[in-house]
């Protein structure tokens, strides 16, 4: 496991463009099931994950990928939360490209991160928040790199395999972050019409860039709206239908993570989860996988484990917080 782990296929803008050209760019129907959507993910794929930390995580899609027992995946996401821990513990991800990983301050440094990365079982390729954002943006723009002033001089340069570029006008040297073209993008949005035109409320994170950078785009949505509704507010659309390959209607599709203005993250659940790890070590994640991922067949069965009251409370709080 030498460094850097940067793979040419990830910044190959010519190959990415050829895949985009070959893609069926349809304004037609995109609605399908989680199972059919996720069937497009293959072992070894580079999977770009939308949302950030515990916000708008495409949890239903990720759970389904774990249920499909995919292997050798790379996950890229700016701030990686416990969904990354599940992929590590399930043996689904062998590599994480991120700027930060843990659940968040109140729950401490991730013991699962430590367990899998310190042993070398999973490689963690670290980019700064902006640099990784620009990697997705370069991909979205179809160029192999973007110039920036971040990450220079730090030890992250060697870890990521970051190169520099000379500005042809001023002669100055800048960092050149390589494009990231994921094989698959997983996204969860607030609303979409059945043709895949997607709208997001609140902070947009990087979903629009990840969608454009990826070859295959899988989306879950809280709400399906009519085409009329899309056309009434076209300036709210952030992902056009022709980019989307599969769309699934999954209310609470990010739970126990949050969805802006719709439901708050379930901090109690995080506390239970980390307490179990504190008590029983990494094995606790295995138990969690059995209970929350492999056990309940459908997403509705999964939500039943939390119960309607719990969901309703988070929904109520989200309204209060964004009022």
């Amino acid at each position, binding site marked *: 496991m030498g460094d850097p782990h940067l793979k040419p296929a990830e910044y190959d803008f*010519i190959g*990415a*463009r*050829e*895949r*985009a*050209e070959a*893609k*069926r*760019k*349809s*304004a*037609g129907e995109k609605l399908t099931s989680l199972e059919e959507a996720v069937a497009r993910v293959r072992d070894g794929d580079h999977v770009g994950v939308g949302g950030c930390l515990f916000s708008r995580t495409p949890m239903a899609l990720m759970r389904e990928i774990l249920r499909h027992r995919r292997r050798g995946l790379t996950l890229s996401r700016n701030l990686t939360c416990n969904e990354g821990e599940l992929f590590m513990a399930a043996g689904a991800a062998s590599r994480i490209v991120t700027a930060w990983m843990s659940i968040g301050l109140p729950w401490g440094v991730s013991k699962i991160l430590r367990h899998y990365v310190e042993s070398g079982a999973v490689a963690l390729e670290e980019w700064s928040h902006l640099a990784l954002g620009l990697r997705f943006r370069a991909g*979205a*723009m*179809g*160029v192999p790199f973007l110039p920036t002033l971040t990450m220079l001089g730090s030890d992250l340069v060697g870890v990521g395999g970051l190169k520099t570029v000379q500005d042809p006008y001023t002669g100055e040297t800048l960092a050149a972050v390589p494009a990231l073209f994921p094989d698959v993008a997983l996204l969860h949005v607030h609303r979409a*019409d059945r*043709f895949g*035109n997607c709208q997001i409320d609140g902070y947009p994170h990087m979903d629009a860039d990840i969608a*454009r950078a990826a070859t295959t785009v899988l989306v879950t949505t809280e709400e399906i709206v009519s*085409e009329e509704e*899309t*056309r009434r507010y*076209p*300036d709210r*659309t*952030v992902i*056009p*239908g*022709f*980019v989307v390959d599969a769309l699934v209607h999954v209310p609470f599709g990010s739970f126990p993570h949050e969805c802006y203005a719709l439901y708050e993250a379930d901090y109690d659940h995080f506390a239970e989860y980390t307490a179990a790890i504190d008590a029983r070590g990494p094995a606790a994640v295995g138990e969690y996988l059995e209970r929350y991922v492999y056990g309940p067949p459908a997403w509705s069965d999964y939500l039943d484990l939390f119960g309607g009251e719990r969901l309703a409370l988070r929904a109520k709080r989200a309204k209060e917080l964004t009022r």
Partner: protein
Amino acid sequence: MTERFNAAELLAVIAARQLHDDTTVFAGVGVPLLAAALAKRRHAPRLTMVIEGGIIGPEIAPGRLPVSTNEMRAGHRATMLPGITDAFLFAQRGFVDVGFMGGAQIDQYGNINTSVLGPDYWHPKVRLPGTGGANDIASLCREVIIVTAHEKRRFVERVDFVTSPAWLRGDDSRRAAGLRFGGVSRVVTTLGILGFDPDSKRMRIEATHPGVSTDTVRGNTGFTLLEAPRVEVTEPPSDDELAMLRALDPERRFLGT
């Protein structure tokens, strides 16, 4: 050409036929937009139009045809309004299948001039409006289709200025210039359909409209046209196509009289 339709109608119908379902097309105002709208209504319902004003998925309303790519008629019932730069970036990323273009001057390699007439850019004989998004469409779309009236003064051996690059100086010169993708595949004109020799990239006759001879095409072209191994004759616009097209422009704003 018969009296059943005029030149603009012929161009729009033949251009519309070049578009397939489940694709995306970059279309400017006028005949190209009419052609895209016709295709969407007739045989490509899942076609998405992209307009350089930063507009995706509009539905052109009959009698409300836009005169600019940056006005409300162009954005009518759009599904997304990403802005100008991002609209072109979709093309750069490879998400736009076809780009429609016109042009004041077109040369034998399909290059287009919409900038200046005369040899000195800074002191031109005639200053034209400029590239707008034409250079980008020519550079970035998967495939470009030129739609234009066929006139000798328009089809020149060498354009005064390459505003929008097609095959540049032929052979491999487009790729060598760093334009790794796309290129002009066809030129739909009022006399027929022209293509390009796969190797030399010189323009050639691929089809003529009914009643038009290859000699007529040559006679209206300012350079030597090659000929495809088999020159087809196009199917004339059907009553059905014409009716649908005319319904889109009842005021004859772009279809003329």
